[in-house]
């Protein structure tokens, strides 16, 4: 097959170090003593816990429901008892904790009822919902919910579906072995994506250092009678970056502010396709993944591991050597050091590398930037890392944005080639998170301002309404005073003469007040008495009859009445 390949600019060729973990097939990791399943394992909303401590769960049972469309469900990896739902240290560079479900396996590994479905008989929306509720996310490392990427753009026709099997990071071989051993399921998963997106072509890109995987997938494509094109791409880091692979296979360059779907391209990882197929056709949610355990260990190998397995138990499978001084999650270019051995493996964990001083020697001290431009030549996104570095170094974040820092994919090529050993990516990560924090603050302050202004507006409106009410009441009072000047005049005339009369005057004012209240009650007639049925009129008459003796007693005891009005006032 003749396929014209394109090139992306920049990139590096680090030593791949992949062979050591390829000698053995994928192994099944044993059941750990305890599983720690973080609820937030994908981009988007944090799933809500659906189980309680003490509850018994089955393998594959939903324990965290997706929160919104951009979110993905989480499931129990095995059957057992929920010990707690608590904050537990996460597989995150910060070493902070996240809400996790702690499960103690019962050893029976009992599945929940699984319903295999034929997705061709289902409407596409239903298939997307199944994928969301099965927790299918991008397993290349970005963990973006896959169902959200499976809606084709309405305006742009879908040209190409790119399946990413490049696996360009050194050391990682999990996708390689997946493609070799489970090629047909991968291809069936790709077929699901194809049927949902209806692209004109399906291109599967694999780096040419994995000929076995290419052969396995080609065989599977033929066996299943599909027309997917399996293409070996030149081995150059970061060919497995989504934008880079799209560029190599289709020649399309995704602009900064656009998504690949705007150009009619969508990209998925091979492992994501595999889990999508298992979820739809077998009813199995994402509860395990293949993880490469390599680096400074006696037995480097790929393992199928339950999500939530603590790092401490996982590394025992590879027997780390004595001089191991840390564990990296992800590859050596983009990965980070795991904060603790207690942290669990999650959906984003594609590789664990045991580090040692000989494998990853301490980088030499940072030297000043000499503006040689090597980083700009290596940058696969054609950015100018040295400029961004100056501004990030000086904490001039506005300028870093002018140099498009948010197009940086943190691939690490610039740091790799820097002759001054400047950890450029660290500066960019720092700048990015500072800018995000500022944006969060800005949003919060805008919201506070809007709410403060609305509150002031409401206060003023309420004040105006109150003033209006008072004015009305005063006017009403004036009218009443005009209507009954004789009574009060008489009372006033008699009061100064004798102290006995003061009492009389008081009684007279009370009586006048009661009279006013009565008049008010009568004027405030019920307004909904027109067109009543006979039954309703009868009822009203009955109630009035009941009230009549009460009213009579009230008039004889006006004090009681005043007391009652007082109590209702307060």
């Amino acid at each position, binding site marked *: 097959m003749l396929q014209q390949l394109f090139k992306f600019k920049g990139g590096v060729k680090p030593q791949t170090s992949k062979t050591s973990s390829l000698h053995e097939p994928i192994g099944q990791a044993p059941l750990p003593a305890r599983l720690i399943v973080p609820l937030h394992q994908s981009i988007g909303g944090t799933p809500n816990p659906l189980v309680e401590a003490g509850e018994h769960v089955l393998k594959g049972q939903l324990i965290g429901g997706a929160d919104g469309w951009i979110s993905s469900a989480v499931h129990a990896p095995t059957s057992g008892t929920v010990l707690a739902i608590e904050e537990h240290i*996460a597989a995150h560079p910060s070493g902070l904790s*996240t809400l996790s479900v702690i499960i103690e396996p019962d050893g029976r590994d009992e599945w929940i009822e699984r319903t295999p479905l034929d997705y061709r008989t289902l409407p596409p929306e239903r298939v997307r919902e199944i994928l969301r509720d099965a927790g299918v996310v991008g397993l290349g490392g970005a963990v973006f919910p896959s169902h959200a990427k499976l809606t084709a753009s309405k305006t742009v026709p879908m040209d190409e579906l790119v399946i990413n099997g490049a696996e360009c990071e050194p050391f990682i071989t999990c996708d390689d072995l997946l493609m070799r051993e489970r090629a047909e399921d991968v291809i069936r998963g790709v077929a699901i994506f194809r049927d949902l997106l209806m692209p004109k072509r399906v291109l599967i890109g694999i780096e040419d250092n994995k000929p076995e995987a290419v052969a396995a997938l080609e065989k599977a494509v033929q066996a299943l009678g599909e027309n997917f094109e399996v293409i070996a791409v030149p081995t150059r880091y970061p060919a497995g970056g989504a934008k880079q692979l799209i560029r190599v296979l289709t020649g399309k360059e995704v602009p900064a502010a656009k998504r690949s779907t705007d150009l009619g391209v969508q990209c998925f990882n091979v492992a994501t396709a595999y889990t999508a197929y298992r979820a739809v056709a077998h009813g199995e949610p994402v509860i395990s993944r293949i993880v490469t355990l390599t680096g400074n260990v006696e037995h480097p190998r790929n393992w199928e591991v339950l999500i939530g397995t603590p790092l401490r138990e996982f590394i025992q499978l590879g027997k780390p050597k004595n001089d191991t001084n840390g564990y990296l999650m992800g590859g050596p270019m983009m990965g980070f050091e795991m904060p603790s051995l207690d942290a669990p493996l999650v959906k984003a964990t594609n590789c664990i590398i045991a580090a040692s001083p000989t494998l990853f020697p301490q980088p030499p001290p*940072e030297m000043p930037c000499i503006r040689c431009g090597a980083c700009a030549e290596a940058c696969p996104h054609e950015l100018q890392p040295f400029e961004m570095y100056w501004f990030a170094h000086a904490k001039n974040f506005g300028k870093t944005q002018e140099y498009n820092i948010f197009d940086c994919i943190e691939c690490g090529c610039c740091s790799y080639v820097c002759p001054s050993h400047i950890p450029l990516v660290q500066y960019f990560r720092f700048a990015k998170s500072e800018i995000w*924090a500022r944006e969060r603050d800005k949003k919060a302050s*805008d919201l506070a301002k809007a709410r*403060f202004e609305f509150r002031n507006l409401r206060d003023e409106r309420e004040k105006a309404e109150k003033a209006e009410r008072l004015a009305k009441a005063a006017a009403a009072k004036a009218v009443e005073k005009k209507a009954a000047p004789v009574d009060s005049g008489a009372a006033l005339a008699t009061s100064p003469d004798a102290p006995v009369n003061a009492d009389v005057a008081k009684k007279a004012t009370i009586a006048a007040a009661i009279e006013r209240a009565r008049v008010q009650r009568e004027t405030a007639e019920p307004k909904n008495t027109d067109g009543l049925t006979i039954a309703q009129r009868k009822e009203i008459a009955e109630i009035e009859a009941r009230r009549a003796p009460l009213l009579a007693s009230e008039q004889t005891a006006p004090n009681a009445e005043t007391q009652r009005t007082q109590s209702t006032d307060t």
Partner: protein
Amino acid sequence: MITAIVIMALGAIVLGAALGYASVKFKVEGNPLVEKIEAILPQTQCGQCGYPGCKPYAEAIAEGEADINLCPPGGMEGVRKLADLLGREPTPLDAEEKPKQVAIIDEATCIGCTLCIQACPVDAIVGAAKQMHTIVASLCTGCELCVKPCPVECIRMEPIAENIENWKWKYPVFEIKRAA
């Protein structure tokens, strides 16, 4: 000579008319400087500067009545930004800089007096008379205005803890080792 004077006078009249028209047509409502200052202020509406809200303080700064270092929630960074905008020298903050806080009501002690609801400048407290009150943490600006009015002292301020969502990558720092 007269022609020259007439030409100059005509020019003056035409330009004057143009300027007059422009000043009516492109009239700027309010002081644009106030808006720029207000955009820098953190909008906590806490009144710690001595003005009843961020806008009055911004107006006072624009008038030159108030100093730029009176806003504790804005911190030293806010002072620097104001100094940049106004071309003044940044002066040290006139108060202690505190981490970001959020108010928390001890719901067991709350008697439902509504005094804190009336004090909250951003309506971040929900509750009703004789009912328990609570604070909507995502709306709370940490202004502390609700703390004083509470008759049973059930409101406390807590600094916002670092979590995975608001965690930031640190500035790269390297240990300097003595060469052997």
